[in-house]
């Protein structure tokens, strides 16, 4: 059985991790895939200079996400005696988590309730809500 845990680098992610740990502890075999999505769109506008530096920035973004969010999360899970690995990706948060879960054949996605609020949420909707509405596998939202 595979579980995908979507983290957003906020403290609420801890709750999602805790919930997944409890869930996995009750199963015989369970692989946990911790996912961090760096919000990015191929249809944004950039200057020529930004484009030239893009590859470098991408590497930096990936290494920051790995060091600060994913590695500690995987360590926590491994310490708890679980099998865990990490994936970091650029893209739309909801679409990407769903795509990974689908590709990996995960049976469930676990995410924290979106902590972003206010103006941007009204305009764009939250990633959590988008994922719940569009995901192809069951989603658990941890509050």
């Amino acid at each position, binding site marked *: 059985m595979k579980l995908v845990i979507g983290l957003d680098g906020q403290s609420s992610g801890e709750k999602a991790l805790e919930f997944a740990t409890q869930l996995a502890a009750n199963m015989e075999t369970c692989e946990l895939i911790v996912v961090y999505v760096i919000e990015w769109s191929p249809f944004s*506008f950039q200057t020529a200079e930004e484009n030239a530096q893009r590859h470098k920035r*991408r590497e930096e973004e990936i290494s920051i996400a790995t060091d600060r969010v994913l590695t500690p999360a995987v360590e926590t899970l491994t310490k708890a005696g679980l099998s865990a690995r990490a994936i970091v990706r650029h893209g739309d948060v909801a679409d990407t988590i769903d795509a990974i879960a689908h590709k990996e054949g995960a049976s469930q996605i676990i995410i924290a309730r979106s902590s972003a609020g206010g103006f941007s949420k009204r305009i764009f909707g939250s990633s959590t809500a988008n994922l719940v509405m569009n995901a192809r596998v069951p989603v658990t939202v941890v509050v």
Partner: protein
Amino acid sequence: MSNIYRVFFTVAAFFAASLPAAAQEAVLTMDEKVNAAFSSATGWFVNGIFMSIPGTNFPWIVMWLVIGATVFTIYFAAVQFRFFGHAIALVKGDYSDPDDAGEVSHFQALATALSGTVGLGNIAGVAVAVGIGGPGATFWMILAGLLGMASKFTECTLGVKYRNEYPDGSVSGGPMYYIAKGFNELGLPGGKILAVMFSIFCILGALGGGNMFQANQAHAQITQITGDFPGWITGIIFATIVFAVIVGGIKSIAKVTEKIVPLMGILYVGAALIVLIVNYNLIGWAFGQIFAGAFTGLGVAGGMVGALIQGFKRAAFSNEAGVGSAAIAHSAVKTKEPITEGFVSLLEPLIDTVVVCTMTALVIVISQQLIIDPNTGNYVLNEAGTAIATVGDTSGVALTSAAFGSAISWFPYVLAIAVILFAFSTMISWSYYGLKAWTYLFGEGKTKELVFKIIFCIFIVIGAAASLGPVIDFSDAAIFAMAVVNIFCLYFLMKIVRRELVSYSARLKSGEIRKFTH
């Protein structure tokens, strides 16, 4: 965030305090004497580039660009039509590997290159072309735009193929790299010298057409609304903002511009469509004028040839196909297949010339700003006999403005803002093209780059402050001198592109290259 603003204000204050003196000095020293001296020193070069083909008033450089585009169209068997659908699919991301997400996408490279070319040429330049060459110029402009797609395809494929990738992950590309490396690969002599020549012209073109001309025209546009005031004030404001972006690294300004410019482009085309819809009963007539004018001239100065020259000239000057500038912008894309960026880039002249320029031309024709003799059906010439007489005696950007204003009364204000923003984004783009040529000549390094960036900002003030005819002529000539070197070299290098094209087409057909399911 507060740190960013503190840096910005410090840089701005420092620059504002130090520049007026430089600006005044520039204005004072760049007096008529210097002007005349500069003119006599560079006149031969300008005249050489813009020289007419003997017996005609057709500048040979325009012919050079059109012949180049025709050769590439034939050599690659109309690649711009055969791979048009594939180009759209690439921009949509159908062939992008999800594992490469976060790298520069085809769309981003295209948008960046477009923001460097869509600008004053599409608004003011088209008005000049239609004002002199009549509606028929539009037909030839579209034809030249369609051919130019093949030039872009060739140069941008090479731009990606021969770019430099540095250990830190950043990239540098453009004609100077593909000329030097490509000639070396083919065992041809002189690659390095041609690359250096290209770089020198590119720096001059960046400071001139990509900078002074833009600053100058933006100031002219601002004074139309606010009334006359000294140009150096506009220059310093522009220079401060550009300085903040390219030296201060205030990315937010660039980001805002890069987001507003495409919006302005869409708004512009949208407004043009509204004018066309309002006058829908005249659309058939307007196309009739364009076709009739293309082959008869409808009474314009120079007749059919006059219309053809203006149309070809406008297309070449507007989409920069064959100049090599786009190859610098496109070379940052992340792709395993350099040729895919070539396919994407061929959309650029289509959007710039075939869509945006044609919209401007249609609006001018349909708004009936050009005066027609009701008896003959031909256009009436102005007193000097050089251009078509217009309602209100306007030309250039004022003609475009009047044409839009006749249907949407408030649009001239939006147009003025659009012109200023287009000028700004063109400056940012060319500062990068110039910088790449500069670092090719002098090497990469923070101090060396800073020197160029400061020179670039000083030239903004000079460009806005003075109407330096000879200097601007020289800079325009430099941009087209880039095309002389670039197209000459492309003739040698095009077989490399064909090899890529044959291999890619085969793999596309066999299904080896296929769409990713997202």
